[in-house]
C-alpha cells in the first residue's frame, strides 16, 4: 500500500517536473496532514504513568499529563483523567516538551542546490524588512515532517541574505497553511551584521578573506550606515503615522512598504536578530543595538565566549549555531565551539542551542545540545538549551518550552533521554494534536526495506 502510494506520488512528481521544465517543487510525500487534507483533531488526551520531564521544575515520576483543546490542562502524580479522554500508557516512557530550533530556514528551502524553484530564502537587494518568512513557509515541505518526528516541534524560520534579510516567523511544525503553523508570524527582524572576515571553514572562507582589514572595516561602516539610515527613517515614519492618526488635519504621510514593518522593531517592541559570529561583529551588533535602542538577539555567536561579560552586562541573549562547526581559527582549541555553551552558562549569559541549518539537519538538534553537555554544560541545561531557553529568548515562554499547565501542548513521548541518539520518539503532540510519526523517510523505508 505504502509502496503504491509512494509510486503514485513519485509519478506525480515526475509529471510535475516535465510540466515545469525540470524544476522540482516541494511535494507532500510523507506529510500525513497533507494526505488527510485536514489537521489531526484536537481533543482530550492523557499520558499516564510516565516520567514527566517538565524542564521548568523537577521531573515527575509516574505522572500524568492531560491535554485538552490544544493546551496542557493538568500535570502531576495525582491528576484526574477526564472522562472520555484517550489515554496513552506511559509506563517506561518519558514526556518532554517539544524542542525548539531558533535559527533555521525551515520551509523556505527544499533543495538548495540545483533546484532554484524550491528556494525562497533571500530577496534581491540588501534592505528587505518587508520580506516575511511566514508568507513563503511551505507547510508541505518534506523537511517539516522529517524534523518533527524526531521531536523538534517548533522552529524560528528566518529569511537570509543582504543586510536586512527580512522578518522571521516562529512556527509549529504542523499545519496545512502557514497561518495554521504560525505561533508568532512576525517574531524578529533579521540583520546580517557586516562581517569582518569569512567563516572558519569552507572554501568560501578561504577565498573571501579580505585583502586588507582597514578596507573591510571601512566598507562595513558604510554598510552599517545604510542600515542606520533606514532604521532612522522608520522611526520618523512611525512618528509621522502616529501624528496623522491623532490629527487627521495633517497632510497624510505616504505609506511605505519598506519602512512600515520596521516600526515595531525600532521601537523595541519586537526583537532584532543580528547574525554575528566574530568577536568584533558581536561587539559591533551590541553597540549598534544600544545606539538604535533595539532589542537585540545574537544569532551565530561562535565568539560569544570571548564577549561573555559584555553579553551578560547588556543582557543580550545568543542563539548558538556553531556547536558542530569547526573552530573559526586554526589556533583555537579543538573544543572551543563544543565548550561555548558551557562558558556562556557559567558567565550567566542567556543562550540557546540551534543547528543554524536550512532544514535537513534540524532534526539533529538534540545532538548539538548533547555535545555541549559532553563538554561542560550540565545535562539539565543542555535540555533547557533546546526547549525553555529558546522559548524565553523568543519571548514565548508563556506558551512553549516546558510542561506547565496552560501552555501549548507540544509534547514528545520517548523511550529514553531525549538528547541521546539511540532514543526513539513514541508519540508526538503539536498544538494538542496527535501527530502520526511518519515522514517522507519512514515511507521510503517502508517501501524498500523488504525488497528482495
Amino acid at each position: 500500500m505504502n509502496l503504491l502510494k509512494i509510486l503514485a506520488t513519485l509519478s506525480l512528481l515526475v509529471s510535475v517536473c516535465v510540466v515545469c521544465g525540470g524544476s522540482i517543487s516541494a511535494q507532500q510525500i510523507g506529510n500525513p496532514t497533507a494526505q488527510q487534507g485536514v489537521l489531526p483533531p484536537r481533543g482530550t488526551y492523557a499520558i499516564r504513568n510516565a516520567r514527566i520531564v517538565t524542564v521548568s521544575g523537577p521531573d515527575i515520576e509516574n505522572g500524568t499529563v492531560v491535554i485538552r483543546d490544544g493546551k496542557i490542562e493538568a500535570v502531576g502524580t495525582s491528576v484526574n483523567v477526564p472522562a472520555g479522554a484517550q489515554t496513552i500508557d506511559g509506563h517506561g516512557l518519558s514526556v518532554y516538551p517539544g524542542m525548539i530550533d531558533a535559527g533555521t530556514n525551515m520551509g523556505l528551502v527544499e533543495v538548495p542546490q540545483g533546484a532554484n524553484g524550491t528556494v525562497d530564502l533571500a530577496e534581491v537587494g540588501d534592505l528587505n524588512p518587508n520580506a516575511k518568512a511566514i508568507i513563503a513557509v511551505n507547510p508541505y515541505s518534506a523537511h517539516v515532517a522529517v524534523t518533527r518526528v524526531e521531536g523538534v516541534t517548533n522552529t524560528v524560520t528566518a529569511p537570509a541574505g543582504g543586510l536586512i534579510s527580512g522578518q522571521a516567523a516562529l512556527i509549529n511544525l504542523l499545519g496545512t497553511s502557514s497561518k495554521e503553523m504560525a505561533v508568532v508570524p512576525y517574531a524578529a527582524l533579521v540583520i546580517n551584521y557586516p562581517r569582518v572576515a569569512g567563516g572558519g571553514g569552507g572554501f568560501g572562507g578561504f577565498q573571501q578573506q579580505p585583502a586588507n582589514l582597514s578596507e573591510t572595516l571601512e566598507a562595513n561602516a558604510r554598510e552599517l550606515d545604510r542600515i542606520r539610515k533606514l532604521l532612522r527613517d522608520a522611526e520618523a515614519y512611525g512618528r509621522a503615522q502616529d501624528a496623522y492618526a491623532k490629527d487627521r488635519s495633517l497632510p497624510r504621510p505616504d505609506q511605505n512598504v519598506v519602512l512600515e514593518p520596521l516600526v515595531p522593531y525600532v521601537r523595541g517592541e519586537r526583537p532584532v536578530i543580528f547574525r554575528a559570529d566574530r568577536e568584533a561583529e558581536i561587539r559591533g551588533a551590541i553597540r549598534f543595538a544600544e545606539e538604535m535602542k533595539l532589542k537585540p538577539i545574537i544569532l551565530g555567536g561562535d565568539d560569544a565566549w570571548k564577549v561573555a561579560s559584555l553579553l551578560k552586562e547588556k543582557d543580550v541573549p545568543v542563539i548558538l549555531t556553531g556547536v558542530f562547526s569547526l573552530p573559526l581559527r586554526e589556533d583555537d582549541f579543538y573544543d572551543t565551539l563544543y565548550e561555548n555553551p558551557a562558558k556562556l552558562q557559567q558567565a550567566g549569559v542567556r543562550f540557546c542551542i540551534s543547528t543554524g541549518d536550512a532544514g535537513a539537519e534540524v532534526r539533529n538538534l538534540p545532538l548539538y545540545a548533547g555535545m555541549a553537555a559532553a563538554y561542560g554544560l550540565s545535562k539539565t541545561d543542555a535540555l533547557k538549551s533546546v526547549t525553555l531557553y529558546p522559548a524565553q529568548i523568543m519571548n514565548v515562554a508563556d506558551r512553549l518550552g516546558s510542561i506547565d499547565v496552560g501552555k501549548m501542548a507540544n509534547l514528545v513521548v520517548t523511550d529514553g533521554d531525549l538528547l541521546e541518539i539511540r532514543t526513539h520518539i513514541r508519540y508526538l503532540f503539536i498544538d494538542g494534536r496527535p501527530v502520526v510519526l511518519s515522514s517522507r523517510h519512514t515511507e521510503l523505508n517502508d517501501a524498500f526495506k523488504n525488497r528482495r
Partner: protein
Amino acid sequence: MRVTKSLLLSVFICVTSVAQAQRVTPEETLIRNATVLTITHGTLQNTDVLLRNGKIAGIGKNLNASANARIIDGTGKYVMPGIIDCHSHSMLDTINEGTLSVTSMVRTADVLNTTDVDLYRELAGGVTTLNLLHGSANPIGGLNTVVKIKYGRPASEFIFPGAMPGIKFALGENVKRSSTPNTPGVQRRYPNTRMGVEETIRDAFIRARDYKRAWDEYRANAGKDKNLVPPRRDLQLEPLVEVLEGKRYVHAHCYVVSEILMLINLADEFGFKVKTFQHALEGYKVAKEIAAHGAGASIFADSWAYKIEAYDAIPYNAAIMTRAGVVVSMNSDSDERARRLNIEAAKAMHWGDLTEEQALRLITINPAIQLGIQDRVGSIEVGKDADIAIWNGHPFSVYSRVDTTFIDGAVYFDRQQDLARRADLAKERAALEQADPNKPAAQGQSPQSPRRRRPSHEDDTIEGDQP
C-alpha cells in the same frame, strides 16, 4: 617584508605546536579494568588491554606490564578501535584535477599537508585512519591514499603500509557539472549526462584493456625477440589495468539507482569489482544488487536533500543495506563531521535498529575491509596495530568524549595533555602578538593576517566544483 615576517611567525607557531603534539612513546601502555569494545569478539567488561611495540599485545584480566609501562586506569571508561573514515579529503592541498574526464594519472599522495590542524581535531574524535580520496569532478578521478593520522610526523610516516591501492570514480551531478555555470565562449566538458558518464568510463576501460593486451604480448615475447619495442608507458591507463587485474580498489562516488546499476553492469562486463559505492544515498533501493556484486557501501548517516540526487536519501540506508548483506561504512567527507563519526554510526541504531555491534562495525572493521587493512586495524585483537581510543563513556552516547587516542601504541591525542598545554600556548600567543612584525603599523595599512594554508573541507556539495 612585514608580511613575510608575520607569515614566518605563523609558520613558527604551527611548527612549535606540532612539535609539542608529538610525544615520547612509552614502550608499553597498560589500560586496566576498562570496557573493551572489541568489535569482532563482543564487549568485554573489566578488561585490561596491553599495548607493546606498537601492537595490541594482550587483552584479558590482570595483565602484567613491564616496570616502565604507562598504566591507565580504565575504570568506567570504554576502549574502542580507532575510527576509520572511508571518505576524507583532510590534509589534501587540492582535491580535484577537474580539467579532464579521466584523471587516473594524478595521485592524492602528492599533495599531503601534514600541518592541517583538522587532523588533530579528528584525532580528538577518536579517528586514526583516513581514506584520502580525489574529488568527484570526473567520472574517473585520481588515486587515493590511506593514511594513519600521525599528526606531527613527516608525510611518509602517514602512509598506511600495505593498504590496497585505490582510485576514485564519480557518477551523477558532480560529474555532469550540474552546478557549474556555463562560461560564455567555453565549451562544456564532456560528459553532460549520466549516459555520457557511462560512455566515458567504458571508453577508458576499452583503452585500458587494449593497453594491457599490448603489454601482455610484449612480456610474453620479449624473451624470444630481443628487438621487440615495449609499448609506451601510459600513466592514465596503468591504474585502470591494475583495476582490471584486481590490484586496485574502485571507490565510486554515486547517488541514484540508475548510475549504481550502470557501474555494476559495466564492471561485470569488464571483469572487475567495485569495492565501495561512496555516498550511495539510494543504495537502499538496490541493496540486493550491490550485495550480489560484492561491493561495499560507504555512506552518510542522514544527510539528504542538499541537491536533487540526494532528495530520496533516507537515514535507514545503513540498516537496509546491512541486512541485505552489504559491507557498509559510515564516512564523513567533511573535516567537521569526521570529528564525530561515533554519533553518525549510532544513528544506525536510532534509524533502522541495527544492533550495537552492527553499528560499531560501520566505523571500524567494515571500513577496514573496504580499504584492505582489516588484518591490521578495525578491531581490538592481539597482534593488531595499537590504534585505539579511550572514551570517558560509551562512544554511542552523545555525552561521551575521547580521553586518549593511540596510533601504533603512541599517544597522538590526550585531553589532559591538551588542557595542560593551554596556558603555555596562550602565553606564547601573547608574546607573538607583541612581536614587532605583528604590531599594527603606526599609519597606513594594518598587517595582513596570514592566510590559512588549507581550507577545511566541509562536504560533498562543493566537492565537484572546486579546483
